[in-house]
């Protein structure tokens, strides 16, 4: 990990998101006049290296889902760049960076073979009227890669790999438990051999006992299939042992991004510090003061001025109310958006 931190941003980047914005218009009245915008994602920059897991953490409603969906254009982003090292789009098979937001329909469809998504809700993300076999086969069918026999074999292998049995193929989603359904969703996400998987809180709807199992499965699959993950979660404890690096989001912006060890040990952003203070500690004797943030999460349709976190930040100064802090690389591979990042001595775990 230490050497990774020194490498800086440059090498091995698979996904590089720059200044991503997604504003949802708020419409009112008969004529559906736009009276404002929900700035669900407001200037998100992050990157994922090949073979690693980037945890994306933030409170509910801070725009994690919107960000991950905007990355593969399930929502059409308002602004920004999503650079992805694509193989299918380059003529010679050599991976080449492309901006997903500039692709036309057909190209975008092609890229979707390389980026897949696991959804938060294992009940709603599987079509209740399709069998498990049809669900897992769907990505192949869509891309015209389904061949009788060969594909069926792939599907059975996938199913067994995620811990289900071949005789589950002809069943319907409602016959499975939540954990099993999520495994079906995982198998589907792997059907086309993607390189990047966007996991939108894949375990938060599951029982705590199943969560660890599913996380382990995801980690094993990452090794076997050489996957990169963007792993969304709403608290730091879930991403702690599965992420190589972690990005912390607050109201549509990334507050801090660093390698997991670095971020947990030396947080540079007051918000990260507050979140860390809420992470349960393995040592029961270890007493840490839990930082209680005052106020509520800011409203993305009417965010505060300056630094969005200033009404709740205990280190806020006057400048924070006026000027929004830039997202900058303070140390190699450690990014933060706080005016006082240099001077503050924040507590990690």
């Amino acid at each position, binding site marked *: 990990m230490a050497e990774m931190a020194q490498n800086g941003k440059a090498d091995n980047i698979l996904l590089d998101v720059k200044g991503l914005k997604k504003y949802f218009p708020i419409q009112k009245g008969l004529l559906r006049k736009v009276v404002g915008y929900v700035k669900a994602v407001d200037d998100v920059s992050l990157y994922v290296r090949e073979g690693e897991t980037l945890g994306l953490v933030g409170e509910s409603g801070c725009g994690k889902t919107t960000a991950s969906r905007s990355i593969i254009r399930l929502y059409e982003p308002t602004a920004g760049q999503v650079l992805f090292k694509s193989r299918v789009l380059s003529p010679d098979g050599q991976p080449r960076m492309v901006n997903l937001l500039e692709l036309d329909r057909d190209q975008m469809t092609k890229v979707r073979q390389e980026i897949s998504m696991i959804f938060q809700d294992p009940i709603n993300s599987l079509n*209740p009227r399709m069998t498990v076999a049809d669900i897992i086969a769907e990505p192949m069918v869509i891309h015209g890669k389904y061949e009788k026999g060969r594909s069926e074999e792939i599907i059975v292998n996938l199913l067994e790999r995620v*811990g289900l049995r071949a005789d589950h193929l002809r069943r319907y989603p409602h016959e499975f438990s939540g954990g099993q359904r999520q495994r079906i969703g995982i198998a589907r996400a792997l059907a086309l051999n993607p390189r990047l998987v966007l996991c939108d809180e894949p375990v938060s709807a599951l029982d705590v006992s199943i969560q660890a199992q599913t996380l382990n*499965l995801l980690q094993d699959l990452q090794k076997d299939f050489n996957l990169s993950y963007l792993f969304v979660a709403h608290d730091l404890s879930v991403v702690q042992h599965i992420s190589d690096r972690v990005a912390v989001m607050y109201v549509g912006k990334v507050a801090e991004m660093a390698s997991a060890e670095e971020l947990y040990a030396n947080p540079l952003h007051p918000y990260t510090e507050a979140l860390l203070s809420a992470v349960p500690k393995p040592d029961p004797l270890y007493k840490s003061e839990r930082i209680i943030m005052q106020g509520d999460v800011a409203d993305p349709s009417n965010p505060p001025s300056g630094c969005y976190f200033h009404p709740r930040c205990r280190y806020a100064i006057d400048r924070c109310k006026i000027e929004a802090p830039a997202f900058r690389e303070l140390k190699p591979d450690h990014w933060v958006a706080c005016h006082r990042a240099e001077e503050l001595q924040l507590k990690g775990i």
Partner: protein
Amino acid sequence: MAVATAPTALPVAKKRELGQSYWDLVKYRFKKNKLGVLGLILLIALYVSFAAIPEFIAPYQLENRSNFVEAPPTAIRFVDANGQFQAPFIYGLDRKIDTVKRLRTWEINTDRKYPLRLFVQGDEYRLFGLIPMNIHLFGIEADQKEQRIFIMGADALGRDYFTRILYGGRLSLMIGLIGQFLTLALGVTLGVISGYYGGAVDMFVQRFTEFLAAFPNIPLFMALSAAIPAFWSPIVVYFMLTLILAFLNWGGLARQVRGLILSLREREYALAAKSFGAKDRRIMFRHLMPGTMSHVIVIATLSIPGMILAETALSWLGLGLRPPLTSWGTLLQDAATVRAIRFTPWLLWVVPPILVTILTYNMLGDGLRDALDPYSGR
């Protein structure tokens, strides 16, 4: 490692649930609804006898005229003049002229007896339009000039009215089915598109359905049927009529489907399909539309009677089908004169089949609704 142990951790599914699809569950629940099952059986019987094989069930051909003008329904007897019990038979009819009332009447002649037979030979026909046959379900073995059997009487041209009701049912029942099918095709397709795309497309479709709904039906229908050229063959008119009925009816269905799609569209499985690169068409018709089907089937079943009634009512008004096409509507037109009700009341025999059809459709529709609705995991 968690993965290795996972398979054994799977709960073993109960036997009955193995491979149970949504439709299996629906079937199971539908079977428990006695009225619904009865409705289904009756409907199948209706469609088979009226639409599929009326040629076989009817004793005569549709247009087979006779001299037995306005003969009353023939009584089927088991006891002869001597009080002897015997196999079913009928007596012959003799024509009498009542010079006082200046009326033609029919009198029973107990000297002529004709036993009732099953599977008698009679008029030639082609079953399903293919197989040449001359066997009829029942009848009497007699020269057609000498005697005929009219279990529901004869009309003003001496045609067997029972035969006419059977054949008329074919058109009326089929207009309901075909019309409803067209309505479904139009309503579901436009509803899905309107709900999925939203925006301007939605706006246009919705305003158009409102326009159709706001327009008074009868004047619109009169205008449309006036637009049908008189020289068109009755069969073309028949298809135009189904088209018009479908055209007037799809709006309500489209609105309901649109509403369902609006909620289904937000389901993550639609997004998931999109994330894997599915085209709009696939998302709309493979993922979203099936979710509306249970609802659509119920609505369709419950509104077929409306179609049948519309045809009947319009033909009765003289706006729909015209003779020589025979439908329940045109038969009703014949029955709807004071003279007919006074002298040939058996022409009202056309009413019970209409009522039974409507009732059975409603029974089936209610049963389906109960079977389809309570499903939560749509």
